[in-house]
């Protein structure tokens, strides 16, 4: 009996690890697509907030959370075009523009939410996408709930990660794409349209950040709250560094951060003696600790964050 309880505990802990890892992985993949083309975007957190809000509102109106996810991703992609235009075409600082998104996107989100629902303290419940529960298989101890009772978006995130790894390492377009972040001038002489690649990178990055945000309100929790993103964009950004700009590293990093979050959430219920605020610090502190232990900045794409101009100014 005790054994079963433990297995049950571990199984559900790992299951929730994957659940909280999902948005981190999606957003970190988005940032990877950005930084592989030399675009550092610290505005991920803001974009997630917009994705979360748009996703929720669309899901609520249409009673179709899947549509909410899609529109959330589109919104993220569109707002990131501001960052793209300002940094790529006007060649202004990436950090400053990321900061601007972190202020603009949440402001837009609150505006839209209040415009639709009014200024309310009432908790509004939306529809959520239910996990896919594979019969029989999901009853296997530990592995069952972890592998066969997950949200479809969780499966999507991991499939996307694998496809991304194949794209960057095994395909010609993937290698071209990486060249943009490493040696843009050389890439240009090889006939790669660097500017266009960078724009595409920003759109992918925005879409995945928006999707990760929308996941929070259409899959993870069904109610809307301001501040739901709670720094996940910055944790995802850290995961890219911690993961050494490699997909495998990214998966491990986000799983580690997800696990920390799942553990602290579990502890909040089983160890009420520890104030929950102290436990809630764990994901942030462990992220700093992880960055402290792994100094990976040498693995960054060489032209990361550097403005590009064809003429060489």
């Amino acid at each position: 009996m005790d054994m079963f309880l433990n297995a049950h505990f571990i199984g559900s802990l790992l299951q929730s690890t994957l659940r909280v890892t999902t948005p981190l992985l999606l957003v970190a993949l988005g940032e990877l697509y950005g930084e592989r083309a030399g675009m550092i975007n610290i505005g991920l957190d803001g974009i997630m907030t917009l994705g979360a809000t748009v996703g929720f509102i669309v899901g609520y109106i249409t009673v179709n959370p899947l549509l909410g996810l899609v529109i959330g991703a589109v919104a993220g992609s569109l707002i990131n075009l501001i960052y793209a235009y300002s940094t790529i075409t006007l060649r202004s600082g990436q950090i400053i523009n990321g900061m601007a998104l972190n202020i603009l996107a949440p402001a837009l989100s609150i505006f839209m939410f209040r415009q639709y629902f009014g200024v309310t303290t009432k908790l509004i419940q939306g529809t959520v996408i239910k996990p896919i529960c594979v019969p029989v298989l999901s009853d296997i101890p530990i592995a069952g709930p972890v592998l066969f009772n997950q949200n479809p978006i969780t499966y999507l995130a991991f499939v996307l990660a694998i496809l991304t790894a194949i794209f960057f390492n095994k395909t010609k377009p993937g290698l071209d794409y990486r060249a943009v972040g490493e040696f843009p001038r050389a890439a240009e002489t090889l006939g790669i349209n660097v500017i266009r690649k960078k724009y595409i990178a920003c759109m992918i990055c925005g879409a995945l950040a928006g999707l990760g945000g929308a996941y929070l309100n259409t899959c993870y929790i069904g109610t809307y709250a301001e501040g739901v993103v709670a720094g996940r964009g910055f944790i995802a950004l850290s995961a890219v560094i911690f993961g050494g700009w490699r997909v495998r590293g990214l998966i491990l990093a986000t799983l580690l951060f997800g696990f920390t979050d799942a553990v602290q959430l579990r502890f909040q219920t089983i160890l009420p003696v520890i104030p929950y605020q102290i436990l809630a610090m764990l994901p942030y502190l462990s992220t700093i600790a992880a960055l402290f232990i792994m100094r990976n900045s040498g693995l960054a794409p060489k032209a990361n964050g550097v403005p590009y101009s064809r003429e060489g100014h």
Partner: protein
Amino acid sequence: MGIRFKNTILKVSISAISILAAILIGAIIIASVGENVFVAYGFLLRGAFGNARAIGETIVKATPLIFTALAAVFAYRCGMFNLGAEGQFIMGAIAASWISATLLPFGGWLNTLLSMIIGALAGGVWGAIPGLLKAYRGLNEMIVSILLNYVATLFMAFLYSGPLMEKNIPQTVAIFDDVKLTRLIEGSRVHTGIFVAIGVMIVASYFLFKTAKGYQLRVVGLNPTAANVNGLAVKKMMVSAFVVSGMIAGLGGAVELLGSSYRLMAGFGLGFGFDGVAIALIGQLHPIGAGLVAYLFAVLRTGANTMQIATGITTSVVDIVQAVIIIFAVAATAIIALPGVKAIVNRKWKGAEQ
């Protein structure tokens, strides 16, 4: 005309045009939800300037923003982004609240003074963490300082709903009446904290532009490699700049606590750090410019509350306007730096002189 003077005019006009353009965008948003722009902005102005109370309230709102903006300016001038002013602000307020209300056995001006000093120190310690990790371990100071914001906020929540809780209400006990910063105008909340803010602004301005150390700090900010070659202790300089930046933010938190909120509660300090960075950028990274833009942001904030009550337009319109100002200011600065445009601007200046 000197080159410096021209640059100043250029920078001021960039900020001014960005602000006006963003206010126009705000007007478009207000009109698009079917409200009368003139009525809305009329209430906004009345809310910020309508009477002595409104004017005072604007200054109350400007005070913390001046501190966090100066914190951002100081770190930026040494080439670093302090995105953690919010956490440093909160840690400063926590220290001040704890010292003032719980620890010191006496009240009065000495209590006030000590609380401010300890608040600044606490902010400095919190700022030292990203500074040290950046200088000696190569960690990204932006990410570390941002993550520490969340830790500080949670720590504050732990205190006001735990060890420092006032009976059953999730807030700390208020500081003593004779410790509170003196109010300046009858019927208004404006307090002497604004003088502290202006004082820090003047000192920071003097330090950065009139002293040898300030010059060195800016050299590190402009070109750390060259500074290193020239024998400047770059790493030490980076850490000290981050510590001072944190101290300014921490002092701001202490002043906010002693002059305005009197206690810690949910939402204290929320958003002040990012706003400070935005203000610093629009203020062209000059302490005086930052001070002026902080006041403008406070005008928008205070006015927006009145606008929301009178017309139902949410205050988030003003948040959007603020964000758009940054985007415009950044874009405008970048456009002027583009080679083609730069040539035109230079020619225009020459033409004007002839």
